[in-house]
């Protein structure tokens, strides 16, 4: 009996015209009611993977089952089981929020008697009741995202795909969306497959994280386990006198590797072992006779994981920013033609 809330991917390859391999043999397994964060830089293959998982693109190789159905052979059944909010919010500027809900409800086969109530309930849940009769062209970016999410939830999908749902949102809208996604998984048992390039988003929201780079999954696990496995904390010291940086660098050198990207006037070292070295570090600084203005211990981040796995930092590792980076994910037209 297939798990009607799971996603199973084995050896997925998606190749485009010209031999561009956007996804290069990935395996992943997402279980019911889980929030799975799919993290990677621009052009890593996140959106292409989502398009295959949501039936918008056929796989070039490999097997993918979503909600227990094969995406290559049972596309219609997959579509009936999933809700999708794609990276580009696709709304009709001529329709109001309520008209969007009615159109989507009708096309999704929501029973006629439930359509109005269901639509209004969702509009209320995403805070758009007052704007329901306004054309979507008048909505702000955050309102459009919220309407997009409501549309994806209209037919009570068992699995929800969110492709970079908070890109371009302000902090308040982002937090509200995180709360709603967490509630969906916790209270309604919805499985959530979330792609993001924001480290914090994956860290805060996801039960498990898959990190993709150049079409390949380079790490997978819970955020805590990934950070535990790969990275160590970083200690950052700012001397009262900037001239003291050299002395601090020398004092910290025995404890780990210098971190280059910290700000000017500070010295940072990624520790070889854990935070229990802190007392020794303070003693070493005391011996070096440097007056310290600020000392902080930074817990490892998912960026540290990405750095350890790929040799590059996730922030700024997108298309064209790194040597040998892969081509940009093909446009919608190229995908259709492939």
């Amino acid at each position, binding site marked *: 009996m297939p798990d009607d809330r799971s996603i199973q991917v084995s050896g997925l390859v998606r190749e485009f015209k010209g031999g561009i391999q956007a996804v290069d043999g990935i395996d992943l397994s997402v279980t019911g009611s889980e929030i799975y964060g799919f993290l990677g830089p621009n052009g890593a293959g996140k959106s292409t993977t989502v398009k295959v998982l*949501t*039936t*918008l*693109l*056929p796989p070039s190789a490999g097997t993918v089952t979503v909600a227990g159905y094969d*995406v*290559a*052979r049972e*596309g*219609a059944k*997959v*579509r*009936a089981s*999933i809700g*999708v909010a*794609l990276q*580009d*919010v*696709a*709304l*009709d500027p*001529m*329709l109001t929020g309520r*008209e969007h809900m*009615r*159109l*989507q409800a*009708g*096309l*999704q*086969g929501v029973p006629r008697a439930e359509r109005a109530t269901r639509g209004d309930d969702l509009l209320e849940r995403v805070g758009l009741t007052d704007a329901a009769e306004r*054309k979507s062209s008048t909505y702000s970016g955050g309102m459009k995202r919220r309407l997009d999410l409501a*549309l994806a939830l209209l037919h009570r999908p068992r699995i929800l795909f969110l492709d970079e749902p908070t890109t371009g949102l302000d902090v308040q809208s982002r937090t509200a969306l995180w709360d709603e996604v967490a509630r969906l998984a916790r209270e309604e048992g919805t499985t959530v497959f979330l792609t993001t390039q924001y480290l914090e988003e994956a860290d805060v929201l996801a039960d498990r994280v898959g990190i993709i780079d150049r079409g390949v999954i380079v790490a997978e696990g819970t955020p805590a386990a990934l950070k535990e496995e790969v990275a160590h904390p970083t200690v950052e010291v700012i001397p009262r006198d900037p001239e003291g940086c050299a002395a601090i660098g020398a004092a910290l050198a025995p404890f780990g590797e210098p971190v280059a990207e910290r700000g000017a006037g500070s010295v940072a070292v990624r520790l070889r072992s854990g935070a229990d070295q802190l007392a020794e570090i303070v003693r070493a600084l005391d011996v070096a006779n440097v007056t310290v203005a600020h000392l902080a211990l930074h817990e490892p981040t998912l960026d540290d994981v990405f750095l350890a796995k790929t040799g590059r930092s996730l922030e700024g590792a997108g298309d064209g920013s790194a040597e040998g980076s892969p081509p940009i994910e093909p446009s*919608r*037209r190229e*995908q*259709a*033609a*492939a």
Partner: protein
Amino acid sequence: MSALASSNLTGQVGLLAGRAVRHIVRQPAQVVFPIAFPLLLLAVNTSGLDAATDLPGFPTASYLDFALAVPFMQGALFAALNGGQDLARDIEGGFLDRLALTPMSGAALIAGQLGGALFMGVVSALIYLIVGLLIGSGVAAGLGGALVLLALAVTISFAFACLGTFVALRAGSGQAVQGFFPLFFVLLFLSSAFFPRDLIEQDWFREVATYNPVSYLVEGIRSLVITGWDGQALAQAFGIAAVMIAGFLALSAWALRTRLART
């Protein structure tokens, strides 16, 4: 097709056609210009070219009667352009992907899209005919002929909308659809829209107009206005429109399958 599937398809077409009509109604430029421009051109041509009716062999004494068929053709071209641009916007903006993620069938998308063009075709044909009658034209084939004229005009409008749908699905961009518009108008100007074929003196022009299917669409409408019942002209016009509909619907279905790579 099962009864359930058929009912779903009907519902989907209804929803998408309703959306297409809302688009037209909410964009005044899509209503006013396609109706006003052909009528304005009719007024200019009628006042400027009336002397052409003095030519021996000209089929009517009223250039208004002769030219009344032209607005119907221009309206059809505008319907093709506007419908095509709307669809292209859906493609460019990603709304087509949203629709593709629902159980919507490809047939429903095309039919719904064409529903809007059909609506515009009916409204504009009625207005052209009423205005034509108000400013002194008539329909030689009588009331029944007027109804057939409306049916033919709507069929022609639908045929060009099918062409616009195909162009939009293939090109996927509003600018590309816009780029086709002058081509449509060249076809109109190189037809017998403004002058009877047998009175065209230039051999090449007469030859092009003879092979241009638009000539026969215009002549079908014109026959009802100035001749009465002309079975051959009507059969040719309806026949060409039907071939266009069948051909461009098939091409549109193919183009949609290519564009929607969904499994």
